[in-house]
């Protein structure tokens, strides 16, 4: 009975955690999965988003998730500017190797992290909201609202993004741009503008994920570091560029982690995503839901 209880709770926690992971991985699914830009700075951007949300929440007492939605606009603009910088540095000169792009984003993530340390110090920051500290009890299963509410947000955002990418013209263009830039040009769309737009969307998603993370737990400047392996594992496991697959893969990893945490030892949990990433690359490089390349 105890095992059942423990297992059931671990399963539910895993699904809830997985939804939040999916939110964090979503921006990367756009930049890395659709645009093929190796944005290793994405988790650091999410952490930056968390700080933006924490600061607005503490100063103006706006609900953190609402603050996250408000911040999407400045972050979108920031993403557009950042992509323009990246494109001018590499892609337009036609000598952009992925090594240099990786290094650039690695440097950007360092600057974000150290900038946060300099501005706010290394101590943990947290948000205030009415639902933090309460839990929903369903029979044997207990879920704190601070997990449940951000997790419920994830499927909504993923559905909206998926509808945008499959039902609108611009969405189709984003999905096409990495594969056939010339064809897109012939259809009358500017590939550079499409990529800028997509990168802006990814940054806006980063701040939404940052808001979700800020609600679930305290944040510190280096929080992104532990997410990096996990978000890439999710994107690769899902298969490059599948948005609904991201949610499924994230839930899979969330459940695997929480089962390991419940039945083996919490200290091994960070290795789970890494092991899954390596296993996926070794056995099924196209991911679970990806089309073969």
């Amino acid at each position, binding site marked *: 009975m105890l095992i059942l209880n423990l297992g059931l709770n671990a399963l539910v926690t895993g699904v809830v955690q997985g939804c939040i992971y999916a939110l964090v991985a979503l921006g990367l699914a756009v930049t890395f999965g659709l645009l093929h830009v190796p944005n290793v700075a994405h988790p650091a951007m999410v952490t930056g988003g968390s700080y933006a949300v924490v600061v607005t929440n503490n100063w103006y007492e706006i609900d953190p998730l609402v603050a996250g939605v408000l911040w999407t606009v400045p972050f979108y603009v920031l993403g557009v500017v950042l992509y323009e910088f990246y494109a001018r540095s590499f892609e337009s000169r036609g000598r952009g190797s992925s090594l240099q792009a990786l290094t650039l984003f690695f*440097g950007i993530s360092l600057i974000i992290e*150290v900038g946060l340390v300099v501005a706010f110090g290394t101590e943990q920051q947290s948000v205030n909201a009415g639902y933090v500290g309460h839990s929903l009890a369903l029979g044997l299963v207990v879920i704190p609202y601070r997990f449940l509410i951000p997790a419920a947000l994830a499927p909504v955002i993923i559905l909206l993004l998926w509808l945008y990418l499959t039902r609108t013209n611009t969405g189709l263009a984003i999905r096409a741009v990495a594969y056939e830039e010339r064809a897109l040009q012939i259809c009358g769309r500017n590939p550079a503008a499409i990529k800028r737009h997509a990168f802006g969307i990814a940054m806006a998603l980063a701040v939404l994920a940052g808001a979700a993370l800020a609600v679930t737990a305290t944040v510190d400047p280096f929080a992104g570091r532990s997410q990096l392996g996990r978000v*890439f594992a999710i994107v690769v496991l899902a298969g490059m560029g599948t948005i609904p697959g991201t949610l499924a893969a994230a839930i899979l990893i969330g459940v695997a982690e929480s089962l390991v945490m419940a039945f083996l030892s919490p200290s091994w949990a960070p290795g789970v995503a890494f092991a899954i990433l390596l296993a996926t690359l070794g056995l099924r490089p196209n991911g679970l839901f990806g089309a073969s390349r």
Partner: protein
Amino acid sequence: MRMPLFIALAALLIAGGFLLPQIVPNPFYFYAGYVVLQYVAIATGWNILGGYAGYTNFGASAFFGAGAYMAALLFKAFGASLLLQLLGAGCVGIILGVVTGYLTLRIQGIYFAIATVALVVVLETAVHATDYLGGAAGLPLLLPPPPAWFGGQPQYVFFVMLALAVSAVVAARWIEISWIGRSLRAIRASEPAAECSGVPTLKLKLLACAVSGCIMSMAGAPYPSYSSYVDPASAFSLTISLNALAMPLIGGTQSWLGPVIGALLMATVQQIATVTISSELNILAVGLVLIAFVVLAPDGLLGLGLFRRRQVS
């Protein structure tokens, strides 16, 4: 310069290092010089895979930390000498490099890079979870006294690190001018073309992973002897990963000289700067310099023509 002459010069440099404790009395110079040489070894090791073959390793500290902990483990369990610790650390580096490389290098370089980032997290977690290695608190070591000739522990580890760094540079230069270096450059330029021309790409990439990992882990092995203490936060520190990447890129990744120049320059500046500025600002400065070089001078200082030299072929 021919290889025998180069090796003779390298041997002369090591011999000079052997005599240095008799000439320079102040142990601080050995203390600071050790760190500079450690980065020469790490940057040289990193460059064999990152520079010649073009595969970025973001997790140099995983190899460094694994080497340091292997050395500490060998010492704690068997009281092994520093030489044995170095060999043990080298073996760990080879195994780590080959396993990570085998699992990720078959697909795309980017996955290797991500795997190396995750490797740091996983190894650090593993050390945290292992009580025998001291966990998060670290492991103090009661070291045997150094050989009398050197006069003190800093001088002794300085000499060991000098020998290691010089050997690493010799190995890197040999790889660069041999057929292995030519093949790795071909892989860097175009992997499919190299494969079609009969270059065994996977085998050579794995070889580069092994050599690179071996050197970086061996550079970590004297660390417990240097500080008589090892803890996860400093052994798997971000600064090491960052410097391993930044130094070759700043010096120039195409030849053995690039990482040496980059490491000597940056590590010396950092040694002077850590006395005056905080470590956060240090990381920030390195990050900014790194971005500037990647964007403006992708071939490093050597590419700028400041150190114009004959093409090795």
